[in-house]
């Protein structure tokens, strides 16, 4: 098991290295001159040239990538003399549009995305698995049909639509909540909840739908298994059979997909953050695209990739824990 984890982690690091190369090359290939974007429209050529040297864009692409990679581990210093500044490790570069180190920007926006992801995750797991279980236990009855309708609506509506619908109905039409205005939970927990409840709900509605389907189908499939019948034939109570036999079998794919979904959310919920104007990583990514802010773009992409690769490793390990048949000796 230990060896298995070490091997997985080793390959995960290799994969991330490959992702960083591809990302860096891809974004560097964009027809944008980063140095020209460092100062406004009326920039003088000599300032652009100075900035190019200062930020390292005068070097070859291989050298640039090497400096970028090195920066992640040891930090990076820019410029010389009076104009010198540095981005400490782990450094993903310097944003010339926002005039800050990329790591600082990500560090500031990531907690927002993390709060959003964790809250939404808890909500959608409760709603999705709960409604799926209710549907499976009442197969063919109105509860099942309601869950089915919910699934169909949930998987077919786009995020921006649900987000705006929730925003419009709760804030503007019903007036129950004020317009979301993000505040750190450390500052004012009540205001924080007020701002987060709608984005949580939006993401939960959208993601719960597929979990409803997954849970329902998984449970119904398990209920037809011989070993579930043997559980009943042993004289076990219904609740024990449901928990140890039916749910146990249905849980494996749910955990797998939940891990991956959660990780991709941690990389930034771009649309939800935009609709509810949450200063998260998704919004940072969008802004960097609009402003052609390459270092930020590369940084956010890499951070998202780290989460997804890590989640894959964790899910693989979880899979072994949950299903003895795939456990490696």
């Amino acid at each position, binding site marked *: 098991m230990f060896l298995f984890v070490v091997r997985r982690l080793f390959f995960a690091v290799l994969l991330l290295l490959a992702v960083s190369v591809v990302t860096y090359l891809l974004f560097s290939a964009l027809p944008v001159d980063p140095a020209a974007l460092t100062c406004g429209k009326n920039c003088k050529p000599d300032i652009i040239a100075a900035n190019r040297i200062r930020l390292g864009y005068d070097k070859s692409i291989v050298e640039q990538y090497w400096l970028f990679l090195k920066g992640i581990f040891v930090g990076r210093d820019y410029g010389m003399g009076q104009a010198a500044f540095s981005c400490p490790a782990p450094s993903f570069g310097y944003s010339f549009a926002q005039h800050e180190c990329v790591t600082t920007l990500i560090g500031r926006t990531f907690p927002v995305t993390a709060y959003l992801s964790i809250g939404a995750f808890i909500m959608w797991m409760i709603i999705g698995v709960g409604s799926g279980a209710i549907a499976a236990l009442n197969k063919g009855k109105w509860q099942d049909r309601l869950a089915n309708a919910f699934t169909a609506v949930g998987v077919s509506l786009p995020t921006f639509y649900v987000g705006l619908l929730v925003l419009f109905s709760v804030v503007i039409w019903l007036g129950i909540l004020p317009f979301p205005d993000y505040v750190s939970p450390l500052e004012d927990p009540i205001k924080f909840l007020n701002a987060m409840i709608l984005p949580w709900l939006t993401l939960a509605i959208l993601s719960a739908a597929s979990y409803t389907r997954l849970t329902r189908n998984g449970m119904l499939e398990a209920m037809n298994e*011989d070993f579930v019948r043997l559980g009943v034939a042993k*004289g076990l109570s219904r609740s024990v059979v449901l928990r140890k036999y039916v749910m146990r079998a249905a849980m494996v794919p749910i955990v797998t997909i939940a891990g991956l979904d959660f990780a991709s959310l941690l990389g930034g919920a771009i649309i939800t953050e935009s609709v509810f104007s949450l200063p998260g990583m998704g919004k940072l990514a969008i802004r960097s695209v609009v402003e052609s802010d390459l270092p930020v773009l590369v940084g956010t992409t890499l951070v998202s990739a780290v989460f997804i690769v890590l989640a894959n490793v964790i899910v693989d390990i979880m899979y072994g824990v949950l299903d003895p048949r795939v456990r490696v000796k």
Partner: protein
Amino acid sequence: MSSQKPVLIVENLSVSFATPDGIVHAVNDLSFVLHEGETLGIVGESGSGKSVTAASLMRLNNSVTATSTGRVVVAGVDVLSASEADVRRLRGSEIAMVFQDPMSALNPYYTVGYQIAEAYEVHHPEASKAQVNAKVLEMMTKVGIPNPAQRADEYPHQFSGGMRQRIVIAIALVNDPKILIADEPTTALDVTVQAQILDLMLALQVENGMAILLITHDLGVIAEVARDVLVMYAGRVVEKADVEDLFEIPTHPYSWGLLGAVASLEVSSRGHLRTIEGTPPSLLNLPSGCAFHPRCSFASENGSRCTTETPLLVQKGPKHSFSACHLPVERIVEIGQKVGN
């Protein structure tokens, strides 16, 4: 036979399922009695209602789609009408089951030791951890699993098919049930393992004195193990006989077909295996009268009676066999003697 105590009484059991295509009549008007220590075989083709019968005896059929009528009495309790709690008390303690496919009958997420312990604990909540562990090892030894202490901590996928079936038997017998339902217990196993499993079940039957209801399509297994046999066709019993009588003078055209279809080393049939013409009827839409008449080569001897009137199960012939057939007794005995051996 009559001196022994009946442990299972089935009276007029009918089971039907509601499906999108209509109502499937899986079991029709089935009655039999199983006595203490007795072995009763139920034989029939796929779709003859054998497995549904087995499941009904423990009320394991889907409660939403299945409708059961009649009575199934175990330890004085009517399984079909009793409360869920009462039936649960019977399951595993009075009446237990061995399933057809050992590959899918065990929960893949728990160790086999845990699964045996679970079956014991549910009916012995007062047992201490040490007692439960001792019981698990005792059962695993009893069913012939080497290194029980070590293997109890392994998962089902680490066992072979025959070993898994031994575990299933250990689970079934952990509470010393009076009735063991064996639903095709050897069908999914290799031929060499089949005999081992049957021998094990019979040895444990001698030890525990339990009654076995053996459900199979394999006449060879029936001949080896059972004392009385019910032959089922399309959800009905068509013949009920002592196992020797069944092989000596079978009294139903369907039984003649089944016995004729048994491959034997002695009879040379020029490489051809004999079969029963036609296919089993759809349980959605049973033939009128005797359900076997479309496949029966003797149906024409009775005029139109076979297509209009369902034959009753009555005693026919010199032996104590019961048969549901319209043919006259003399004719049945005449053909039966030719088919039997």
